[in-house]
């Protein structure tokens, strides 16, 4: 066996084409060939509930949900791998026990055309996780037993991590409707979560809503519109999406080495207070206002709804950059206010409804605009609020706005002198110098669009042929967003030792304006390349055959359906030409193809 990129003359697997691990490029098969691994996750979900009917219109429900999860991760990486000098192994065990308890009391009463209902909820939850991790390396006399014999390792370390969080809530809801024409609802909640600061663990969230079924009114006479309902609601809800101990200052413990008077090493402990405490940390609150219209035309042939909303969120939970002069980089705090406004529209129609052919369509559309109204309350000398440049949060701009130095093309051969003034050469990206001062810095940052779509829509068409054959396909689109595309810089790895994506690149003979030369020079300034990532995707295509009842009666099956389904059949992007325009996380990289699924199935109901 001759030597190759992967194997040496003796047939042993090589560490890398250069036999070293420079630039982190190692043979991709090393881990597969020299590792043992067990990675298991067992989860048991259970729910127990009881419903009791009580006199006077009351009913009571008790529900208990439990999730028990065991995670096991055993990994062994042998010393025989060219990457290692010693073998190492780890055993990670984690048990998670999580329960939720609901007590719900309901009451219903109808008097003539008046109907009342009342709900009271009492809720508690607890999350507990216990984890142990044992690691060992440098096994004596050999590492043949792998992770099953950690005590054979001469260096052993053990770590444990236990986490507990608790939460509770109570809610009262009161509803009234008159003649099913006028409906009213009032809700009051109090939620609590252990992660918030000592004085702010609980918060109140009220809401109110009403609806008017216009089509039930006596004055409403229309043959075209057979159902029209107007909805209005206002509500407050909270967000508690922070780490379990975000309000506390954590001291992370470690070890350091000293030597004693005899020259022997002694270990001493270290403490590092890595986070600043915030005892004022509290619930993030959203005040949501929603106006909706449900309609149905032509005796149900066209149905749909239209919603418009305006939400204001304040006490946002943000990670606020601190001047690192304090010794901390940031702190989690409640600051600022953002607003979200948008519309959502959905309509479905029965286009053709004949005996042997039916065709219906469903269409939805949504649009959302968010804007930062307030930030931290720091004012400049004119009394205007300051933006947070470090985190790219600007008053009056959306949270997902892109702000940075703009790559406007590639320096071409005839611009070599101008490029040299910025320290780069033809083939490198040209950055816009907004104020023409010859220096690329924060004053040249511009707004370049949004990371989130400007609007989304979806369209599904369903057909039924000869009563038994169904065919449907779905299109959906995210439109107006931009994604980072730094692959265009050609710097994803050292050219002499790693593989590289097949992308176009600039050469003097092929002077492009969108991809730089291989291993291009960023120059003096950091910047990202942004590309429009709008797309339309053909997503869910299904062909199904429903077996006729006469056939099924004979074999005592009540329903049977045979289907073939394809997901992600195709995508069209206006400007994105590398893998998929929609980010798909794969192995930690978001530049990856989107998976295409084909499914063949049979549904049977007995």
């Amino acid at each position, binding site marked *: 066996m001759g030597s190759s990129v992967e194997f040496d003359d003796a047939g042993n697997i090589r560490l890398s084409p250069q036999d070293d691990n420079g630039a982190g490029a190692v043979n991709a098969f090393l881990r597969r060939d020299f590792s043992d691994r067990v990675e298991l996750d067992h989860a048991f979900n259970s729910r127990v509930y009881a419903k009791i009917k009580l006199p006077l219109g009351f009913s009571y429900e008790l529900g208990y949900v439990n999730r028990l999860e065991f995670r096991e991760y055993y990994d062994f990486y042998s010393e025989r791998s060219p990457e290692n000098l010693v073998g190492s192994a780890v055993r990670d065990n984690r048990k998670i026990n999580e329960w939720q308890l609901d007590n719900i009391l309901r009451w219903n009463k109808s008097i003539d055309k008046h109907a009342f209902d009342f709900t009271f909820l009492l809720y508690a939850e607890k999350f507990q996780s216990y984890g142990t991790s044992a690691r060992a390396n440098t096994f004596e006399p050999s590492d043949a037993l792998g992770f099953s014999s950690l005590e054979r390792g001469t260096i052993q370390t053990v770590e444990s991590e236990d986490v507990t969080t608790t939460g509770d809530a109570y809610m009262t809801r009161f509803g009234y409707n008159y003649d099913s024409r006028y409906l009213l609802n009032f809700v009051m909640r109090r939620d609590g979560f252990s992660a918030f600061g000592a004085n702010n663990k609980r918060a109140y969230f009220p809401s109110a809503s009403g609806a008017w079924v216009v089509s039930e009114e006596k004055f409403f006479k229309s043959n075209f519109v057979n159902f029209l309902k107007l909805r209005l609601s206002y509500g407050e809800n909270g967000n508690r999406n922070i780490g379990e101990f975000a309000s506390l200052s954590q001291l992370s413990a470690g070890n350091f080495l000293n030597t004693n008077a*005899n020259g022997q090493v002694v270990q001493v402990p270290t403490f590092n207070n890595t986070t600043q405490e915030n005892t004022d940390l509290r619930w993030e609150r959203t005040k949501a206002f929603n106006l909706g219209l449900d309609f149905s035309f032509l005796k149900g042939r066209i149905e749909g709804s239209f919603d418009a909303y305006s939400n204001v969120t304040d006490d946002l939970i943000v990670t606020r950059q601190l001047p690192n002069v304090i*010794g901390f980089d940031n702190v989690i705090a409640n600051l600022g206010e953002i607003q979200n406004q948008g519309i959502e529209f959905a309509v479905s129609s029965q286009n053709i409804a004949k005996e042997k052919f039916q065709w219906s369509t469903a269409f939805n559309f949504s649009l959302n605009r968010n804007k930062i109204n307030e930030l931290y309350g720091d004012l400049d000398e004119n009394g205007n609020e300051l933006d947070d440049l470090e985190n790219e949060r600007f008053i009056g701009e959306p949270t997902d706005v892109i702000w940075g130095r703009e790559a406007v093309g590639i320096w071409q051969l005839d611009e070599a002198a101008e490029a040299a003034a910025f320290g780069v050469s033809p083939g490198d990206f040209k950055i816009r110098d907004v104020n023409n001062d010859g220096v690329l810095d924060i004053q040249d940052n511009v707004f370049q669009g949004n990371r989130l779509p400007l609007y989304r829509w979806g369209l599904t068409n369903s057909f039924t042929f000869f009563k038994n054959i169904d065919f449907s396909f779905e299109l959906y689109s995210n439109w107006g967003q931009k994604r980072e595309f730094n692959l265009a810089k050609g710097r994803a790895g050292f050219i002499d030792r790693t593989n590289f994506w097949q992308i176009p690149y600039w050469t003097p003979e092929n002077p492009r304006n969108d991809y730089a030369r291989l291993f291009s020079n960023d120059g003096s300034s950091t910047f990202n390349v942004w590309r429009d990532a709008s797309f339309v995707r053909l997503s869910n295509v299904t062909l199904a055959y429903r077996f006729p009842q006469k056939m099924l009666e004979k074999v005592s099956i009540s329903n049977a359906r045979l289907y073939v389904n394809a997901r992600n059949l195709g995508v069209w992007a206006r400007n994105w030409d590398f893998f998929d325009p929609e980010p798909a996380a794969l192995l930690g990289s978001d530049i990856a193809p989107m998976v295409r699924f084909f499914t063949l199935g049979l549904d049977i109901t007995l």
Partner: protein
Amino acid sequence: MKKAVNRHCRIIIGSLAMLGILLTSCAEDFLDAEPQSFFTPENALNTPAGLNSVLSTALYNIRSEYYGDGAPMITENVFSEVAIEGTTDKAGPAQDLNLQILPDANLNSGNTNRIGWFWEAFYENIKFANTVIDRLDDAEFDNEAQRNDILGRAMFHRAYAYYRLIHQFGDVPLVLEEVTSPRLNFVSTQRDVILDFIQAELNMAVPMVNESSNGGEVNRGVVLHLLTKVNLAAGDFEAAILSASQLIDGSNYALVTNRFGSTAGDATKDVTWDLHQVENKSLPSNTEVILAGVDRLEFRDIGAANDFGDGTSIMRQATPLWWRFINTPDGQNGMSDEPNISIDQVNLIGRGIGRNRGTRYSTKDIWRNANTDERHKLGNWLDMEDLVYNAPSLEASGNPFFGQNLELYLPDGTALCADTIRNWYGFPQYKFFVPDPTAVKPSGGHGDWYIYRLAETYLLRAEAHFWNNNNALAAADINVIRQRANADPVDVSDVDIDYILDERARELYYEENRKTELTRIAYIFAKTGRSAYNGKSYSLDNFSQDNFWYDRIMEVTDFYNVPGLRTVFGVAFTMSPYHVLWPVPAGAINANTQGVINQNQGYPGAENNIPPLTSIPEPEG
């Protein structure tokens, strides 16, 4: 039967319901957060052991400067006359300083520089020191001496951090208390004010700190060494002589002059070699070490945050990239970094990448009259011509140059090395050699590293004598060092600041924080107005425009601002006088929205500066 069952069921369900309500009755402490797996200041910092643990983290930061790939130490060397950034295959390393050293550039990466690391690490140490000082009285101590020792060491860490910061960044914010809530109104304090403050603190700390301690921990000698530097910086030359003498003439430390340690029996080596082998640095018989960073191979996986993954990595950073782009005189590839071949050079000198590239000044000029100086002896010091062509392909083809010493030029002047910036320069093997058993091709493994040793104290005292116009005593101190290294003594008439700087480069290369010390000397010139050996005198008024630091580097280094001199990637070397002070990282200034932290002259943003504080405000109630 059914009715009885119904009644039973109802009773069971009813009692379950009661249970349900009881279980969820919201007890007041149901929502208390219990941190089970980490400490908080309230439960851990109220004992002497807890306070010591915080100070040990400060020591970890001090030690981190010298370790790892792209170690921060290299940036200190690069911003001085002893080294330049030798990475020639990409743009980003600190070479074209005019273009790359900006407040919002990447200031914390092995591929660029570590200016931002210094700012962050030293302010973290200030945070640790302030935390200990402010919480000192929450703890109970065995005796007064224990309390004073902890307080003294905290004061040392604060003084160490500010000493470095004012010589790297000039005027910086002075933070003297633990900050427990988001504070955004920092302002810069004048460098001299901070200097006077830390001088007073160190003077207080000297008697408080224990005289002796574990190796790797701060003791009285460490405090005295830093106090000597601070005294020099403050212009108190007599006090510097006194504090240095307390160390030198005391009974705890002595220069190592006899063979010792693991290599004592090797007749081909000498005391200079013994002194710098990593296993000898913390031995009890090493009387010269004042403070060393301890890092041992067997402790490399001690589980928590503070182990050093790869060790010193020093052979990789500082040895030239000798294994590529060097041809034999007949045009064949000459070198190989394969281990265990018939001429194995990689296990001898490591697989260097030339990041810390010694200049002609530090590799040739200061050794002009080396003669018997052990620090430049063949074997301790290696020039490229001391290496041999060892590529296995030469051996296989019977090439006559196999095993012969390297040559740089053919007789007609053609160079045999394609990249002499990265690949061709001499280096002190005795200092760089660190065994690396866990790597296939050694980079420099785990080992202790000197932070302070007595040789530097001698040179600091010599410098104090020079400033004090007593060159005879200065020469005497310099000659103690030279005599130990078996070098010719210096003549009193040759003693000047440039000779002292040369001797520091010979003795303390890759140990001293060269940029900090050179900036300190530049400040002394500017403050005293004394004229330097180059005939110029300097002033604090235009320090960033005209200073001794820049003139010295331009005088003895032949890289910066040389027209047409570029790396193979195409990057030029440029430097300006204002680089004597590093840019304050933009993140600190931008996040400080309610105050103004001053930027240094020459960098964008300096136009927003406000006058720095000239005194220390009373602590806020």
